[in-house]
């Protein structure tokens, strides 16, 4: 027969002490950044990356990032079928080092397999002409995947303000999309140091030219604090198939190299921190000065992590880097 222990003196004291002692400090969850690569992803020369291999690279990254049973299960956690998903690409540099169309096709394929109708997928950037130059078929037809620039979609007329920034936001972001997957490119930037997840959202505002001074600090962080950006961006998939370690953001083939991979994270600050280290490492290998010496260290990454912004972490101890 089971004995009811009741409340003995010893148990009472134990319970009281346990309540009085401070609980062990909660270990903050780490931000996971998954780097998925395939050395055969991109054949040398101007050819496109192998679409089947890229799909595999993407699947491994997303499945690992979400600890999911399958890639599709992971994508189902990113957006619901009723939501409109925006894919914010980076097309400033033409076909050379804009977000690769093959990567975007892979993301669109997996989103549809996860139940998102193609009519609910919108690929967007600043200008229709930039999208076209990067190889995307500009189209605003409602029954298929849309590809549209902010110049065609328009901007809000009321200012969005945070900190040092006052801008008009793209209506594609504010009105069309419920969720955003950010698809930047890993590259050097001649003014703000590096451009990846955080900087790519300059493509959501009407006046990015105003916010490059002081190496983009604190402007890049402040833009990412604007509520529609902060609330809607759910995932970053950074195109690192052929990143560029110098001479960016324009395409300079002499300074790009075959990294053959992608970086993914739900924490844009952690992703930018890891990407920045990759760029610096490559610069060191090539005997090029670190960005700090050139007065374009991307201090905005630390600002994005500070107590005023809390957009993510740049503390390497709080970043779980997974390489697959």
């Amino acid at each position, binding site marked *: 027969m089971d004995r009811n222990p009741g409340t003995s003196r010893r148990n009472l004291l134990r319970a009281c002490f346990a309540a009085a002692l401070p609980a062990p400090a909660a270990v903050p969850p780490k931000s996971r950044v998954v780097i998925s690569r395939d050395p055969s992803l991109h054949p040398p020369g101007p050819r496109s990356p192998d679409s089947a291999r890229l799909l595999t690279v993407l699947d491994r990254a997303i499945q690992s990032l979400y600890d999911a049973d399958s890639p599709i299960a992971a994508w189902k956690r990113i957006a619901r079928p009723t939501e409109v998903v925006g894919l914010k690409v980076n097309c*400033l*540099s*033409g076909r050379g080092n804009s977000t690769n169309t093959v990567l975007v096709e892979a993301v669109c394929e997996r989103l549809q397999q996860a139940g998102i109708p193609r009519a609910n997928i919108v690929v967007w950037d600043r200008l229709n002409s930039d999208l076209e130059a990067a190889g995307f078929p500009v189209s605003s037809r409602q029954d298929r995947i849309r590809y549209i620039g902010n*110049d065609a979609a328009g*901007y809000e007329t009321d*200012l969005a*303000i945070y900190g040092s920034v*006052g801008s*008009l936001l793209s209506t594609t972001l504010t009105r069309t999309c419920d969720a955003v997957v950010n698809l930047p490119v890993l590259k050097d930037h*001649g*003014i703000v140091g590096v451009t990846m997840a955080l900087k790519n959202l300059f493509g959501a505002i*009407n*006046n990015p*030219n*105003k916010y*490059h*001074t002081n190496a983009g600090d604190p402007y890049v962080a402040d833009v990412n604090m604007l509520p529609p950006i902060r609330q809607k961006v759910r995932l970053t998939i950074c195109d690192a198939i052929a990143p560029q370690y110098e*001479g*960016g*953001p*324009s395409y*300079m083939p002499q300074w790009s190299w075959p990294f053959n991979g992608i970086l993914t994270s739900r924490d844009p600050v952690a992703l930018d921190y890891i990407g920045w280290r990759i760029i610096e490492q490559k610069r060191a290998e090539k005997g090029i000065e670190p960005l700090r010496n050139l007065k374009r260290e991307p201090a905005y990454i630390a600002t994005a992590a500070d107590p005023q912004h809390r957009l993510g972490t740049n503390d390497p101890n709080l970043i779980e880097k997974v390489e697959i």
Partner: protein
Amino acid sequence: MDRRAFLKTATLPCLAACAAERALAMPAANDAQFTIEARFYEKLPYKKIKCKLCPRECVIDDHERGYCGVRENRGGTYYSLVYSRVCAAHVDPIEKKPLFHFAPGTMAFSIATAGCNVNCKMCQNWEISQSRPEQVENTYLPPKNVAALAQQYHCYSIAYTYSEPVVFSEYVMDTAEAGRSSGVKSVVISGGYIQEEPLKQLCRRVDAIKVDLKAFSDKFYKEVVNGELKPILDTLVSIRKLGTWNEIVYLVIPTLNDSDQEFKSLARWVKTELGPDVPLHFSQFHPEYLLKNLPLTPVPTLERAKAICDAEGLHYVYIGNIPGNPAENTYCPKCRRVLVERVGFEVRAIHLNRGKCQYCQQVIPGVWDGLLHL
């Protein structure tokens, strides 16, 4: 003032503005017509360029634009995207600019393109100044057409205003030349953030420049304007040396640039470097754009600023944006009589005779040959 004169001053601006807007209601041309190679830049390796128009000296990659948002590097050649690309056009009294010693009572055919090379948190025209040209509605208006419209609407001058004319300087220069050929003068309303060479070229072509001196501290320029003070002061000195008529406006913003010490330092600098005859206008701030948290400038603050500058020996200190304030009038520095009586943008009486006080014959500096005789 008789009835005819009153009607002339009261209705001309409205009628002309309406007519000008009708005249401008023509379809915009294609982008190529707005694009010309920029005149002030330097080519750098790897198709980069360095802009030499303003002190910012943006280094710009291929396919990128400068801070102003209206100049673009295309394959290593730098282009202005706002040549003849007018986003605002009105017929305004010259007093609205304000230019008080430049043909008072006359009208200015006033135009702007998108873009600006600073980002003032108090900007009243941020919808155009902080936008790129493709983000606003534009009309194709080449220089000769501007000059013709100015004549058509009986404007004494063309004013380049509302946004920042420095960023559309090629268009300003060509339009000013077209205007001069037609007997129409040109005035520039600017923040003065410009390099010396383009400024020299501008001064050769225009008849007056009003500079918005935003404050007299570099801290303010860095924090509120995203610019620097010294290049603006250099511009003012250069304009003086080049002999182009110049007036200064200082927008007084509560708590940010309204200390006695700042007014005193400003007055002493103006008197020493530019002389006591440069008109200085203290304007009332209205909460706008990114400075909506501050109140209107109290009138006593503006009067304090004027009193300090008067005491330092400046001859023509005005108060602006306060219709009916006696400091809107021009007074003779010698006999203290009213020479130009103003209420708001309206000129009610002028007591000048060929640039001299009609009472004591004191020479009053300015451009008076086109003034409206009431």
